[in-house]
C-alpha cells in the first residue's frame, strides 16, 4: 500500500514539476524496491506528451535509473 502511494506521488511529481525534482525520488524508489513499473509509466508519459520529440527521454531515463540502482544496491545498505 505504501509502495502504491509512493508510486502515485512520484507520477504526480513527474507530471507537474521538473523532471530534475522527480529524478532523486525515482532513484530512491528504485533503490527501495525493484521497480520495472517505472519504465511502463515513463513510456506512457513519452507516448502522451512526447509527440514533439523523436527520442523517448523518460523511458530511457527510467531504464537507466533502474539498471544503475540495481548495480549500486549491493553496495548500499537499504
Amino acid at each position, binding site marked *: 500500500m505504501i509502495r502504491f502511494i509512493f508510486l502515485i506521488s512520484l507520477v504526480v511529481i513527474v507530471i507537474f514539476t521538473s523532471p530534475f525534482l522527480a529524478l532523486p525520488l525515482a532513484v530512491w524508489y528504485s533503490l527501495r524496491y525493484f521497480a*520495472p513499473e517505472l*519504465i511502463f509509466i515513463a513510456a*506512457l508519459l513519452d507516448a502522451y506528451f*512526447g509527440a514533439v520529440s523523436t527520442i523517448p527521454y523518460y523511458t530511457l531515463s527510467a531504464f537507466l535509473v533502474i539498471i544503475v540502482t540495481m548495480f549500486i544496491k549491493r553496495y548500499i545498505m537499504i
Partner: protein
Amino acid sequence: MKRFLSTKTTNRHRTSPEKHELVLLGSIFLPLFLLLWLFPGLLGQIAAPIIKPFLSAETKLRQSLSNQDQTDVNLETVELERLKAENTELRTLLGGESEARIAAGVIGRPTNLPYDVLVIDKGERDGIVKDAPVYVNDNQAIGFVVAVYGESSVVALVTTPGWRSTVYIYGPNIYTTAVGQGGGIARVHTPQGIKLEEGNIVVVPSLSAGIYGRISAIDSIPSRTEQYGYVAMNMSLNSLHLVSVGTRPLSTIDFETAKTVVNEAARALLEVSVPEGILIEAESASSTATSTTAATTTEVQ
C-alpha cells in the same frame, strides 16, 4: 580448497536473481521502446484516459485555490466575474469570420509538463484534427495540434525546444529562423549588422495569421559576428486558460503565400479588437436605432 569451492558456488547463486531482474527489465523495456518508436499513437491512446484526469484535477484545484484566495469577497461575485471574463474571452477567440474554430480549455501548460507542450481538453470527439493551428485572442497563433486523443489533445508550440520555424521580424523586415527554447521563448540568430530592437513584432507565416509576439531581449556583443534575439509571446503562458483551434490542418506554404500572410499581418497592426457594443460603425449605428425604435413601439402598445 573445499572452502574456496563452496564460496564460489555461493557467489554464483547470489548473482542469478539479478540476471532474472535484468531479463525482466529487458523484456519490458524493449517492447515498450519498439512500440513507442513504431506505434507512438497506440500507446498514447492508452495513456490518454490515465493522464487526462490528473491534468483536469490539477486545473480544477488551481481554480478552486484562486477562488479561496478571495476571502473577503463574495464567492458568487467572483464566479460571476470569472464567467463574464471567460465569456468575453470566448467571444474574442471565436469572433473571427475567416475560419471556423473550436474553443478549448487549457489543462496543461509548458512550464508544468514534460516536453514543454500545451494540453487542451478537446480531442477527436470534439472535432479536433491533427496539425490544426491553435490561437489565443483573436488572431495570435501559438502552435499547432501535434497529437489528438479521444478527449484531449497535445499542442506543440513555436517555443517547444528544438523546433524551428520561419518568422518575419518587422523593423529590420527580415525573414529568419526561430528555434524554440522552451518556457514560451524562441530564439532568432542573425548577423551582427541587422538592427534588432526590443519590441520588434514577430510573425510566423506558416501559422496562417496574426502576430506571434515581440523581441523581448537581445544578446548582442559587438565583437561577435552574430547576435541573438529572444522572442516572447505577448501574453504569459501561465495565464492561458482558453484557446481556439482551427478546423483545417496546416499545410506547408510557399514563399509567395508567406509574403501575403506577412502583408496582411502588417495591415492588422493598425486594428484593435474592440468588444461588441463599444465599437461604433455606420452599419451598427443604424441597426441600434432601429432596435430602439422597435422597443419603444412595443412599450407603447
